[in-house]
């Protein structure tokens, strides 16, 4: 191996690692706020990526219809829960947010899909569609389970993953897709070639990490989310609507997932089921970060990306084994370092 290959692998690893970092951040965020281990995070990635790729090639993505269908479901949940105290404003708000909004987006998607829209429009539409799916998903699947144990939430999360992955196959077919580069062009520095796409990845990752940091540190909503994460009951008593916190967490997670997807689909071909493995690796990073620390998760993600790049070069057969087995020593170290005197909460 020479320096060029090493630098190349390193670069490759960092690009993938940046994506894992974003996903890891989203997983940490959702877990901290809602206690849901978000296995469908990978589906947000593929939905974002494939919606973007479909739109760019002038096809109508099924996800826009799914968003409307889920919106109708979410609206039904809202109205059913509030059936005893229904009043006009509540109905209007729910219908606007859950039905009218996705309907407008669906109309826009149909309009634009027919005429191969510019990249910016594709990105915007894909992000909005997946964001809505994330939001409604929380309302339909997880909000009714908010009081249950982590295990039940996890199993529900598996169920959602299965359903969304199946729908992914329905919408996008079994063939993989690639999308157009978000930022074309490239330059070389020494023996390394930097594409506009990889620079976009770095830029957006850093922007998101800084953005999340600012959001949680400075804004009231960010602080409300942190409060919910620390103590759900306490947050409620302080007047924070924990369902709102959950919605924000899912919204952020789905936007981050979709964005990650849009960023990698020009680099690698994505299939309807690619998300699971990508999400799992973000997960590995999140765990290494202890499911609590954002900077640590980001660093761990870069590490996972680099290990993956190098092991795919040396032992491509065992690439996945190495990445996942990496977890065990890390977990052991973390457990030994902090043998938490666990107070039980069920």
């Amino acid at each position, binding site marked *: 191996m020479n320096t060029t290959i090493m630098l190349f692998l390193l670069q490759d690893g960092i690009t993938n690692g940046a994506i894992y970092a974003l996903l890891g951040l989203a997983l940490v965020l959702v877990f901290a706020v809602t206690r849901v281990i978000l296995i469908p995070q990978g589906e947000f990635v593929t939905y974002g990526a494939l919606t973007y790729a479909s739109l760019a090639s002038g096809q109508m993505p099924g996800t826009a219809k799914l968003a409307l269908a889920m919106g109708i479901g979410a609206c039904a949940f809202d109205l059913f829960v509030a059936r005893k105290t229904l009043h006009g404003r509540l109905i209007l708000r729910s219908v606007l947010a859950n039905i009218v909004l996705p309907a407008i987006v669906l109309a826009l998607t149909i309009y634009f899909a027919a005429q191969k829209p510019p990249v910016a429009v594709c990105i915007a539409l894909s992000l909005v569609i997946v964001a809505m799916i994330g939001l409604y998903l929380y309302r339909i699947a997880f909000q009714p389970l908010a009081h249950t144990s982590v295990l039940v939430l996890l199993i529900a999360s598996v169920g959602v993953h299965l359903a969304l992955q199946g729908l992914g196959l329905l919408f996008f077919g079994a063939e993989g897709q690639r999308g157009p580069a978000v930022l074309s062009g490239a330059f070389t520095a020494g023996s390394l070639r930097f594409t506009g796409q990889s620079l976009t990845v770095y830029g957006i990752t850093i922007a998101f990490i800084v953005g999340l940091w600012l959001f949680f540190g400075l804004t009231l909503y960010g602080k409300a989310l942190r409060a919910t994460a620390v103590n759900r009951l306490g947050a409620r008593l302080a007047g924070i609507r924990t369902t709102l916190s959950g919605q924000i967490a899912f919204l952020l997670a789905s936007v981050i997932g979709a964005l990650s997807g849009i960023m990698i689909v020009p680099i690698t071909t994505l299939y309807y089921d690619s998300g699971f493995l990508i999400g799992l690796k973000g997960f590995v990073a999140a*765990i290494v970060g202890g499911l609590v620390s954002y900077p640590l998760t980001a660093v761990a993600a870069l590490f996972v990306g680099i290990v993956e790049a190098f092991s795919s070069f040396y032992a491509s057969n065992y690439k996945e084994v190495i990445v996942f087995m990496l977890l065990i020593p890390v*977990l052991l170290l973390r457990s030994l370092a902090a043998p938490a005197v666990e107070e039980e909460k069920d």
Partner: protein
Amino acid sequence: MQSRLPILVFAALMAAIPFVPGVPPFWIVLLDNIGLAALVAMGLVLLTGVGGLTSFGQAAFVGFGAYTTAVLTTSYGLSPWLTLPLSLVVSGLFAVLLGLITVRLSGHYLPLGTLAWGLGLFYLFSKLEFLGRNDGISAIPPLSIGAFRMLSPGSIYYAIWVAVLISALLTMNLLDSRTGRAIRALRRGHVAAEAFGVHTPRAKLLVFIHAAVLAGLSGWLYAHLQRAVTPTPFGAHAGIEYLFIAVVGGAGYVWGGVLGAAIVVILKEVLQSYLPLILPGSGQVETIVFGIMLVALLQLAPGGVWPWLMSFFPERSNGRKPDTSLKLETRTRSPGRGSVLLQVEKARKQFGGVVAVNNVSFEVQAREIVALIGPNGAGKSTTFNLITGVLSATSGSISVLGKKVNRAPPQEIVKLGISRTFQHVKLVPDMTVLENVAIGAHLRGQSGPLASMLRLDRADEAKLLAEAARQIERVGLTEQMHQLAGSLSLGQQRIVEIARALCVDPMLLLLDEPAAGLRHMEKQQLAKLLRDLRDGGMSVLLVEHDMGFVMNLADRIVVLDFGTKIAEGTPATIKTNPEVIKAYLGVAA
């Protein structure tokens, strides 16, 4: 304790099904699959639902069972009956190996750790040459008894369901025993269980092995049912599926595992065979519907279907009072008044820069009641934790009957005859008062897990329960004996903790705020009980905020403030001590 009748009916029903005319052979295949899944789910019930250890890796243990018999019967020509114990042993050995690493993981790391090695082992199964890589191993011989070869799903049906029933019985026996109580206490954190001598890592490893052996049994049966093995059914998805079988059925209930297996297997089958008729042409519809139904099921019955079903049946009281004439051996009592039982010398505990306990010295003599008082944050509970080995002192020494116990773990301290209650009640809420109290007698029983499964522990068990019942009677909670501990008032739960501590047959009883939450009359009863205990030869060290209670009860009082001892003496001298008054009331400006 459980009634055997429903199980017998169930067994008879299952035995009759193949003889019912007109049962399609396909149903038998389904029942075979349900039985196989139920075995694994049952292990998970014990591991996850009861023990609180979530594992995604059970499919790998099924793989160990299946591959062991596959290799041994095809490459070495062993009889399948010979490979049965070997399959179980291999699964069990790998469980020891993986368990030693995994059960030490705390909190959410544990399920993720199992996911990691689950994925790793799956890749290993599909890459190893002698396991046939991705093609697996085929031409595995069927099970046979004499000339009867179990070639059809209908003939192996009995083998599978006999295995399920026996495993269910053994598992239920295990749960209803001394070891079982230790396992059931695991989920509520380890501090309370360890204070009564339960070796929690060992108990965790035990359930881990139990679950793995059940999975291995399922794998062994699977290999001889399919007569071929490939890596796919042992992957991460299968591991997740076993887990949700357990959760859907009701993760805390042995029969929940069986029911969950039935629900999931049948649901998948129905979806696969009928959905294409309704929605033709779309390949993955059953996965979508399955996922949605899973979420819906959890929303309707978050605790699982089994407890939901059971709630329709009237609760039968299984409250037989144990025969209290049975006696356990008791400790030889310490010498009379005046000899030093517990000596704390310059004990110090620092948490980073905070000195929680600052060079505190005091002693507790035989047959006396000593109270440890002080304002909130004075270091009283930390002192308790130092004495009982939950925390180890930064410096200084603690000795019991002249023997230093500085670094001894809680399990060793309780063996010396020191038992305790907790400031924040640590009972297992879904166990009865009797069972909770019996945990206190853990060290006074001998029966191990195997004896419990085979019900060879009954004599031992009866004595333990008798002792528990006696202590419950002593603290005056006989009427609540068969209620769930979680249904009692907080004050009563504190009393249950005292009964549990008494089950140790202690020389020194450590009580952390025993009177909190009690009514006046109850406090008086408690004071009388403690005096009786002292007169019977026991010493008591208690932390309490109720001054009236303390002053009337204690022989001596030790006062802590900000981790430092500021006074010690009889109640009369403490009442007038200016330092103490300052600590509690502040100084007049």
